[in-house]
């Protein structure tokens, strides 16, 4: 071992490459031996060797970094394993604690539900809106497309998220400064702003109530009535707004969904629109009667992927709320909760149980969505 971390890693990378090449040969020879025993022809034996030789990095990596960890964590999830102690079998204690006692885990579930029910439709809707705009095939479409996709690239870099932290500051952040200026200069906007604030706070208070088991916060918000004229959103300052800030970020990073919708719009046969236009259908009607039904498979895809992504949101919560202990639990995602619960005290057993619950939730959600899709997704018009 060397003391220089860079040399050490270079050395280890070399060892890893050597190991991979060796395993390529080992797997190749093994496969060829089996092919010979099975009585395959010479050419087929050679192909078998080559196939396993080239696929070996993935096969070996799959065993070391996926299969083994999954099995190990399944076992550890039934133990009280905490580094550096040895694991001791405790049965379903971890799972019982998670489901019955752990308030933060339940909170992360409710938060994810919130992001899925409130945030995902906004995100998908905005992505669809942008895709429809781009699909008008205007000149300079490429530039707009780049601008819309740029947030995906920058997206979850901590540096860019810090800029959001600056912009979302409730007192002198640029977003609230603009909202104040618009509300003062243009009264209807002020009413709209206050109405949105009211709705957001009621909905958020309801979800916080579900999480806490009592609805005093909701009562307080409702009793306070319609927000005063000088109110602005409290983005990252109160528990009523923490999740809305994350939703703003989700909507901002909708570029991938937009590109998928754009592909869907391109796949719609032009004749359908032309025929409808001849019959005198307005663009609005054509969108809802032709484009939208044909886009349902793409909406479905974005829904599945978006829901799984909502479980895994980590960076925004880390950058926006990490150091704000009283506020942070109102925004925890499931993966953030996993990181916190596991690595604060190296509680491997407990963390394994959370990992497996996340895995099971993802599987169940995906299966349910695939079951439900027949009811509303149209595939047959293609």
């Amino acid at each position, binding site marked *: 071992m060397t003391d220089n971390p860079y040399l050490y890693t270079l050395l280890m990378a070399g060892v890893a490459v050597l190991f991979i090449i060796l395993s390529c040969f080992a797997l190749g020879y093994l496969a060829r031996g089996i092919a010979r025993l099975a009585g395959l022809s010479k050419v087929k034996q050679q192909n078998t060797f*080559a196939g396993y030789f080239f696929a070996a990095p993935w096969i070996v990596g799959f065993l070391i970094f996926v299969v083994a960890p999954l099995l190990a964590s399944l076992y550890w999830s039934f133990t009280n394993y905490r580094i550096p102690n040895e694991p001791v079998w405790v049965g379903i204690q971890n799972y019982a604690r998670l489901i019955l006692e752990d308030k933060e885990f339940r909170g992360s579930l409710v938060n994810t539900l919130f992001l899925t029910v409130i945030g995902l439709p906004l995100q998908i809707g905005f992505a669809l809106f942008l895709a429809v705009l781009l699909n008008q095939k205007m000149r300079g479409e490429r530039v707009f497309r780049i601008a819309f996709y740029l947030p995906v690239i920058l997206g979850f870099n901590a*540096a860019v998220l*810090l800029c959001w932290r600056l912009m979302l500051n409730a007192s002198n952040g640029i977003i609230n400064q603009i909202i104040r200026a618009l509300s003062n200069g243009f009264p209807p906007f002020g009413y709209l702003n206050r109405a949105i604030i009211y709705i957001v706070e009621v909905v958020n208070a309801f979800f916080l109530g579900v999480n806490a088991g009592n609805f005093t916060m909701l009562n307080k918000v409702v009793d306070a009535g319609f927000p005063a004229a000088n109110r602005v959103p409290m983005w990252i300052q109160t528990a009523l707004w923490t999740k809305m800030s994350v939703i703003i970020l989700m909507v901002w990073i909708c570029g991938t969904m937009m*590109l998928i919708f754009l592909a869907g719009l391109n796949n719609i046969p032009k004749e359908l629109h032309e025929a409808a236009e001849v019959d005198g259908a307005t663009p609005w009607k054509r969108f809802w009667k032709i484009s939208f039904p044909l886009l349902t498979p793409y909406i479905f895809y974005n829904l599945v992927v978006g829901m799984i992504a909502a479980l895994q949101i*980590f960076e925004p919560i880390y950058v926006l709320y990490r150091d704000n202990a009283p506020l942070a639990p109102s925004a925890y995602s499931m993966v953030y909760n996993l990181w916190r619960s596991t690595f604060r005290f190296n509680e491997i057993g407990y963390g394994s149980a959370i990992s497996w619950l996340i895995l099971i939730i993802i599987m169940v959600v995906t299966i349910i969505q695939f079951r439900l899709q027949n009811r509303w997704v149209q595939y047959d018009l293609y």
Partner: protein
Amino acid sequence: MKTTLHITGKVFLYVLLTAASLLMAFPLFWMISTSLKSLQEANAPKIVWVPSQILLDAYRNILSDPDFLRSYFNSTFYAALALVGTLISIAAVAYAFGRLEWPGRNLVFFLMLSTMMIPAQALIVPQYVFFHRIGWIGSFNPLIIPGYFAGGAAMIFLLRQAMAQIPKEIDESAFVDGASYVQIWWYLVLPLVKAPLATVATFLFIGYWNNLLGPLIYTQSSDLYTLPVYVAQLYNINSTTQPWPSIMAAAVLTTVPLIIVFFFAQRFILESVVITGLKG
């Protein structure tokens, strides 16, 4: 009548498109603008769109901070080393799936696609234990070396699709001429899939450059912090005014490589998202 409607419609569309673009790019503009402001202007209660006087103090500050420079080097080291190994191994595996016929290929391919369902974070806890046992915590190894085992099923898929489209006769004639599989892969196939390789490289680079959770868990000592970890802790909740110009100068310098890479690769990226996104 119809043409005037058409023109107003077009103008309206352009206004919408421009407004949406400005909205999406606004954080970038704000980052740059703030990095050039004075501390007073950055924390001013009134809107200051652009600094009244362009100040480079923030950049001078951050560039003279050895911690920032070290984390910049760390990020570059990590991203470069991880990128090379991951790209080569992915290219090898994609070749096996896309151009070679071998018993069990479809089963292995199906397994690979199904790993896309498993969120990486669900594996983080047991992988951490594994790296802990072999003494790799507190080094870059856990960030870099797993990629060498062809990490990233979606990327393999993307490259496989590209390789499968090349006519098979090319390989066969080279094979008859006595070329080995490795030679065919390296000298014949890879040069034909340069664009998809560039796409994969870009995606991998962006993923590594933005990675926060991995470095947070594995590096542990501040000597090894990568940029996202370092930049995230520049915001200090205990102080009343944040040094926003310096923080944003660090943020600008962090995002510059991303923007350069995206600028050169945007043509490939915008097309390939659809391939992997939909068929994956």
